[in-house]
């Protein structure tokens, strides 16, 4: 099994971190992973994206022609990656920002009102973790425990509160996803 | 009071940095509630009392050259 995910959005939406947590959680699940960012000035102002590949066999290419899952956090990202999403692949969209539907009909579409949910939690920045929760839920690729461990690796040195806040956001996301 | 000046702001070019708002001596600039396509709350003029004299302070400070400043005067014959 090899699954590939592209996560795309504006620079400030935390898509890189989302990808990293997904990859790290998958690693804790005992899977092979690669995480590959778009980088450089294109991250500034414009859109940013990263590609995560997860597999139970060694991963060759970290570059992906046709991803299994696309997480689109804004309209330009949805439009850009809709084209390459695999047939029957999953498109997870942040419906707080994306007010339209993908045009392809041969894909699965899920929505998460990420900004709004984040606001209700009281920290607008965690919209990425909300989305991550939704992703975990609909793909079943990573479990909450592994996500928790990944969050700890990432934030524990900074502070425990942050871990809890983010984990809470993930859980909210898991609950709120619609498809 | 008659309008002495006003500004046009290219809201699509604006990055919502707030330097114009910070510099405006008449406090007639504010962030819009709305986002532009780039996702920024752009700056806009809110000058119900026609306080803006067209001093161009906002223009001087705008790093993205979004602002056009107008001055309005009576025609002299």
């Amino acid at each position, binding site marked *: 099994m090899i699954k590939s995910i592209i996560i795309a959005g504006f620079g400030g939406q935390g898509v890189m971190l989302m990808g990293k947590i997904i*990859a*790290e959680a998958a690693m804790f699940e005992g899977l092979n992973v*690669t995480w*590959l*960012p778009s980088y450089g*000035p294109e991250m500034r102002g414009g859109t940013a994206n990263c590609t995560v590949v997860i597999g139970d066999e060694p991963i*060759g*290419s970290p*570059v992906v*022609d046709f991803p299994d899952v696309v997480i689109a956090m804004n309209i330009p990202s949805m439009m850009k990656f809709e084209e390459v999403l695999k047939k029957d692949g999953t498109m997870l969209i942040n419906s707080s920002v994306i007010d339209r539907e993908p045009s392809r009909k041969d894909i699965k579409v899920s929505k998460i009102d990420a900004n709004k949910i984040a606001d209700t939690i009281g920290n607008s920045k965690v919209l990425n973790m909300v989305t991550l929760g939704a992703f975990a839920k609909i793909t079943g690729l990573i479990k909450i425990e592994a996500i928790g461990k990944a969050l700890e690796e990432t934030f524990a040195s900074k502070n425990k509160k942050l871990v809890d806040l983010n984990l809470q956001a993930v859980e909210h996301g898991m609950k709120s996803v619609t498809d | 009071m008659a309008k002495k000046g006003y500004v046009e702001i290219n809201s699509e070019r604006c990055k919502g940095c707030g330097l114009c708002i910070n510099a405006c001596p008449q406090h007639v600039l504010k962030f819009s509630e709305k986002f532009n396509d780039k996702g920024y709350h752009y700056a806009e003029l809110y000058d119900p009392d026609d306080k803006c004299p067209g001093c161009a302070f906002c223009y001087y400070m705008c790093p993205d050259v979004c602002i056009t400043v107008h001055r309005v005067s009576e025609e002299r014959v």
Partner: protein
Amino acid sequence: MKMLMKGTEAIAEAAIRAGCRLYFGYPITPQSELTEYMAKRMPEVKGTFLQSESEVATVNMLYGAACTGRKVMTSTSSPGFSLMQEGISYMAGAELPAIFINVMRGGPGLGDIQPSQSDYFQSTKGGGHGDYRMIVLAPHTLQEATNMMKEAFDLAFKYRMLVTILVDGMIGQMMEPVELPEWTKPEEFEEPNWALTGANGRKPRKVTSFDLDPYELEKMNLRYQETYKKVSQNEVKYEEFKIEDAEITVVAYGTMARIVKTVIDYARKSGIKVGLFRPITLWPFPYERLSEISKNVKNILTVEMSYGQMVEDVKLAVEEKSDVHFYGRSAGVVPTPAEILDAIKKIVR
């Protein structure tokens, strides 16, 4: 325990664990995280991090630090590596060991900052002047890169040669789980008998690449050539992947090789038997082994993120019997599995 690490950071940490305590560098995308990691980490291990004023200064700081017999390294990306060429030639001439990481990006000139493999010639044939060589290692996973660091230092000191780890922006920027290597204690490292450390009673030592008398300089050169011969005989490394039954063998290194591994899966699923020959040492290039392999396969496809550089070495290696093909894109565009598969299909069809 495996950790999810960025390529640049995994390489940096592995270098420290291999006993490197002197890093000089100048920021440049896509390797700046390596410099930044060293800035943070070196003070923690009582090592030295110094941001130089330029890559020209960097290579000469490396020269000075290497003169003292310590394990030293730097990292840069393509334009920075070009600026180091004079210094590299000097270090090669002075037989100084040191590690260079070149995280290649799209060129020529300022180019872009996306992954590329277009500095192959520069590293393997000599971007600087004179008849010198560096050992050039090309890992294709972060684990391999990480494991390679100790070996790189060992080779550098064993042969008194420069070692370049040639990776591209993708290896530099990606994350992968990495099992970090054991620690090598710097204290256990024996001071080489040529190091400049202050004469302190012994005969003063001199380290230079210089002799105005051409016959003396020739002697020095013949010594280098002797070393290069030894390295060519003893240190060639490569990986063979599913070549036994291959009807077409792809030659690729680094990132390109790992992408080809995916292509091989695809291809075999659609009934085309593809193998991979992956040079790990780009210099010394595995001419002999590739020559043997070429006797048993009709088609050899070299795939590079360049317009054809390693392919020259491939041609030098293969027997007339097999045809050497080439597929490459450069300038920061990474060929995708799909297009490589197409290229393969065009050949075998």
